[in-house]
């Protein structure tokens, strides 16, 4: 990704790229900034406030994209669950979306949706489809046949079987898909800056000096913490919604 970003940089000429790309460059010439030190504490202390807005933007980008992606992928899964013929095209379709390089995706969307957060969200949620769709399908496929047979034999309707038996039992796989999708979206969202979507990317590429490591480390660090936090929240959610799995181990 970083490689792709570096390659893409020359494309992002001034004016094309939004606020915080070139002109927000810090004008103060702090001593350690001039040197090639890996991390400049003085600068970090003075500038930590500038990460607030990008962090919130980043959070929003990730949350909205994953929720949107989940809604679409989940709908796909429910459709494909009862219609096996839909599975190959859905898998291939989401797979193709997944393989488009992120920067290319943003630039492909620019003529259609213009610059801005929406463009970033469209691309980011498109990336989550494959993982969430596939994991949901795996989760549904893993529900033991005997359990479905018993459910049917006791008089649950197909809809009741889906919502009361199959989906609850597929929860671990579905959440696993969400975790992967969320963590990777936190990472890819750093590129949203190229679509004018803001986020932590503004502080990574936005310093205009890709050699100035301090801001990259801070923004990258925030992204990593954010990914870990999302992951932890989802993991805890999964534990809470699947108490029977703990029971089995006890």
């Amino acid at each position, binding site marked *: 990704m970083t490689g792709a970003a570096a390659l893409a940089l020359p494309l992002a000429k001034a004016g094309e790229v939004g606020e915080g790309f070139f002109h927000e460059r810090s004008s103060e010439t702090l001593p350690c900034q001039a040197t090639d030190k890996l991390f400049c504490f003085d600068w970090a202390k003075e500038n930590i406030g500038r990460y607030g807005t990008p962090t919130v933007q980043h959070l929003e980008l990730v949350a909205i994209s994953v929720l949107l992606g989940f809604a679409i992928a989940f709908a796909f899964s429910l459709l494909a669950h009862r219609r096996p013929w839909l599975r190959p095209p859905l898998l291939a379709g989401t797979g193709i979306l997944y393989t488009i390089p992120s920067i290319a995706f943003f630039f492909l969307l620019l003529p259609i949706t213009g610059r801005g957060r929406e463009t970033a969200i469209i691309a980011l949620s498109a990336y989550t489809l494959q993982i969430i769709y596939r994991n949901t399908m795996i989760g549904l496929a893993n529900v033991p046949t005997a359990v479905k047979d018993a459910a049917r034999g006791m008089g649950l309707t197909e809809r009741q079987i889906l919502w009361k038996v199959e989906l609850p039992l597929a929860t671990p796989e579905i959440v696993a898909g969400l975790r992967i999708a969320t963590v990777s979206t936190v990472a890819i969202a750093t590129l949203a800056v190229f679509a004018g979507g803001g986020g932590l990317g503004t502080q990574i590429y936005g310093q205009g000096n890709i050699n100035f490591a301090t801001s990259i480390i801070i923004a990258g660090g925030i992204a990593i913490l954010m990914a870990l936090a999302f992951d932890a929240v989802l993991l805890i959610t999964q534990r809470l919604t699947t108490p029977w799995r703990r*029971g089995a181990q006890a």
Partner: protein
Amino acid sequence: MPDPEVTDEVPSADASAVRYENATKRYGDSAEAAVERLNLEIPAGEVCVLVGPSGCGKTTAMRLVNRTVELTEGDVLLDGESVRDRDPARLRRETGYVIQQIGLFPHRTVAENIATVPHLLGWKKERIGARTAELLELIGLDPELGERYPAQLSGGQQQRVGVARALAADPLVMLMDEPFGAIDPINRERLQNEFLRLQAEIRKTVLFVTHDIDEAIKMGDRIAVMRKGGHVAQYATPAELLMAPADEFVEDFVGADRALKRLALMRVSDIDLWEAPLAHVGQATAEVRAKLRGAEVPYPLLVDSERRPLGWLSERDLAAETVAARPDSPLGPLLDLDDVMRDALADLLQGEAQYAAVADHRGRIAGVLSVEIISEFLASPQAKTEEHGAAERPH
């Protein structure tokens, strides 16, 4: 027929008679039907076992009842009403369903699993709670286990919960597809006995599928031996099936040791026992010796004042003038009139004993069972002589 006393009772009103009328199931365009023109009538409150080799269509036939397999032709009637006219989901809620793999909901507690159908039927919370507690007690499970998840139970406990879940809404018919097939032999036996006890109480109409003829004989009031295509080779009571197999197929299926299997259907009280020469402490030995002459059992049995067997006396014990108290006299296996004959024979063989004292329910001597009585019974015209060899060497 596990308990003849109960069989004579009028079946309770909450069980349906099941009738197959030319019931046929064909999958796709396949020429051979899985079940072809099946005709079978199961009286309300009886256990009908469908038994046969795998692929004979017994499970398909069973599933026609709750429409988890749909009829191609013909009909299945519950108390005269066609299952075709019933909404499948509602029909299934009135039909208990137990399968080999149990299929408990892993994400629901034991109590929630049992409450599945009552919940679907919209019962009130208190009623569901009361019913769940009642069923846990009925299947002999600690009420505390109700809060556990299925994965925390043993296989036997899980299958008990499976039966309780099927019984929850008091179904008219129970469908049981190899319900104990995945349980180890010891627990299987226990579960079978428990179910028979339960059935004697609840008197459901049960369709029980198995490939195990021994299980069929044990569980069934009637047995339908099926061959490929769902054809019924013979429909009879277990005793009839063992005594008079309709054809070679049934004879093969029932097995060469069917005389021995008949022992599983009998109790010690069903056979004529020998009379034991009794001896009391303090009795003159001459008197005892006189009793031994002409007796079928060559040893005197020492009994207490209540005629409860204490032990066998040997030649040496009779050397004195009177019979002495012998607290350590060997008794060997002590049987009960209610014991199943097969188990009684096992006890005799295990105890390496020729004779075993049989006590009545108050512990008083009722007679003596010997290996000879059993082998004479097996050799009788009812049990075919050609199977004598197999009968004498059961293990």
